[in-house]
């Protein structure tokens, strides 16, 4: 509210000259961005605190699992080799980082869905291939598994 009146004054006095009008608009955008950043930082700090409280109350088994969850990753060399063998050209490091990251998220989605299936069928881990296949079938129906192999019929 205070900011808006300030902007209003700035805009009103700047109507005479184009350059000052641009500066006022630019200032407005800068202020908005700064406010959003501060709000986001506060939300992040809250989340970090909550995570710390949660992790400090983990049992040993939970700590083990959490450590595996955070630490496990695909080896960058293998991913780079795989992508380069598909493209035939070299790829940048950022591509490898992005690809390993989303692959891990993808693996997580499959495993979580398979655990849901396992629980729904009244069975226990370890996950069996039938759970994995059912999980893939469900994810496919939700469009979360990319598939560009369907048969295109040109003339029917």
């Amino acid at each position, binding site marked *: 509210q205070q900011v808006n009146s300030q902007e209003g004054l700035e805009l009103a006095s700047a109507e005479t000259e184009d350059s000052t009008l641009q500066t006022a608009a630019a200032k407005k955008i800068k202020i908005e961005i700064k406010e959003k950043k501060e709000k986001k930082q506060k939300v992040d700090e809250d989340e970090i605190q909550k995570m710390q409280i949660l992790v400090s109350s983990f049992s040993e088994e939970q700590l083990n699992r959490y450590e595996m969850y955070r630490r496990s990753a695909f080896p960058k060399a293998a991913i780079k080799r795989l992508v380069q063998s598909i493209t035939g050209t070299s790829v940048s490091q950022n591509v490898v980082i992005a690809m390993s990251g989303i692959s891990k998220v993808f693996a*997580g989605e499959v495993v979580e869905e398979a655990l849901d299936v396992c629980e729904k069928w009244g069975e226990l881990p370890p996950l069996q291939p039938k759970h994995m296949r059912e999980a893939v079938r469900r994810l496919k129906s939700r469009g979360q598994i990319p598939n560009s192999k369907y048969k295109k019929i040109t003339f029917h």
Partner: protein
Amino acid sequence: AGRVWPEPGGACDAAGRSWAWCRTTRWRRPQPRRDRGRKCGAAASMADEEEDPPFEEDTEEAGGGPDGGQGKRKRLFSKELRCMMYGFGDDQNPYTESVDILEDLVIEFITEMTHKAMSIGRQGRVQVEDIVFLIRKDPRKFARVKDLLTMNEELKRARKAFDEANYGS
């Protein structure tokens, strides 16, 4: 010894065994019986599932299966995927068959993404912008990629600042 180059146009050797792919070129090498890794107890019951272990081992030497050689490929991510599955909620010792299925899924995912990325933006190349574009509809993956790339930038900046500080002293 052991490395034999294929005849031009030949797909199999005299015994009907197909060529094993190495990374850069085709050459045949004697295939040892594949070590199946830890089977964690219930292996006997797992054999009933669709994939028959003896069949899978044979595909390494016999003609390629319909799935385009994925049965032949050496397992790339076995160790890492085991840890990952445990981290995501599976048992501490996941079944090898499940790990294999997940590895095939991940490789198929990466292949699909790469092909799609090659077809948009700059053709024939994979760039980060293309990946981000493809992922835009999936909130989890999009957020993850953004986090990873920003963290990488911060780390690079920090390392650079650290090196410059050291250079002065």
